[in-house]
């Protein structure tokens, strides 16, 4: 099996070692995306976020997405990590990354990892504003 996968769901995610983890003697390119908490949504101030997950299924879906990306772009390594629990502005909530021989593959794979994670992985985000809290995307 080509392609080493690291999938994790943690309370706090550390971004400092991600490039070392994705490093591989046959990888000339490593692309990593980090999603973080933004201060404003539609001009309203977000005080914090709260992430909840159906962990056993989320890990399975993340693994499927990693396998799809490895198959499609011939990746050497993949990392998918998501945080749960309360998160403040600027805290990282998701890290996805891919390493491959050339840069085109890792850029496309990294974009696929985050786009597909947002579509399929059972994780829910609640935005906490001053006077209300909202489960993101729940209603049309």
């Amino acid at each position, binding site marked *: 099996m080509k392609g080493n996968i690291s999938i994790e769901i943690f309370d706090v995610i550390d971004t400092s070692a991600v490039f070392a983890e994705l490093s591989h003697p046959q990888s000339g390119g490593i692309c990593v995306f980090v999603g973080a908490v933004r201060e404003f949504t539609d001009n309203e101030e977000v005080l914090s976020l709260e992430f909840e997950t159906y962990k056993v*299924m989320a890990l399975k879906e993340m693994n499927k997405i990693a396998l799809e990306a490895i198959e499609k772009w011939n990746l050497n390594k993949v990392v998918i990590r998501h945080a749960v629990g309360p998160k403040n502005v600027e805290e990282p909530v998701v890290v996805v990354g891919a390493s491959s021989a050339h840069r085109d593959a890792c850029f496309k794979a990294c974009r696929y990892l985050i786009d597909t994670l*947002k579509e399929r992985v059972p994780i829910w985000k609640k935005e906490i504003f001053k006077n209300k809290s909202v489960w993101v995307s*729940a209603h049309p």
Partner: protein
Amino acid sequence: MEVLLFGIAKDIVGKSSFRFNADELAPGSVSELRERLKRSFPEFGKLSSLAVAVNSAYADDAVQLKEGDEIALIPPVSGG
């Protein structure tokens, strides 16, 4: 038969899981489960989407449910 609830589904039902009390009352398929939920909790009908997972994988309406399955309601996901 136990059904796990997450995100807004948990808020709608008011708890993080519920059981069908007697096996003979449990829904036989994903579509039946979905119909029953919308009848008991009309708020489910207002969501952007409502998926069902059986044994931690997405299951479409035709999937049959049996005792011992781990069932979960998956309201619109919003990770990342």
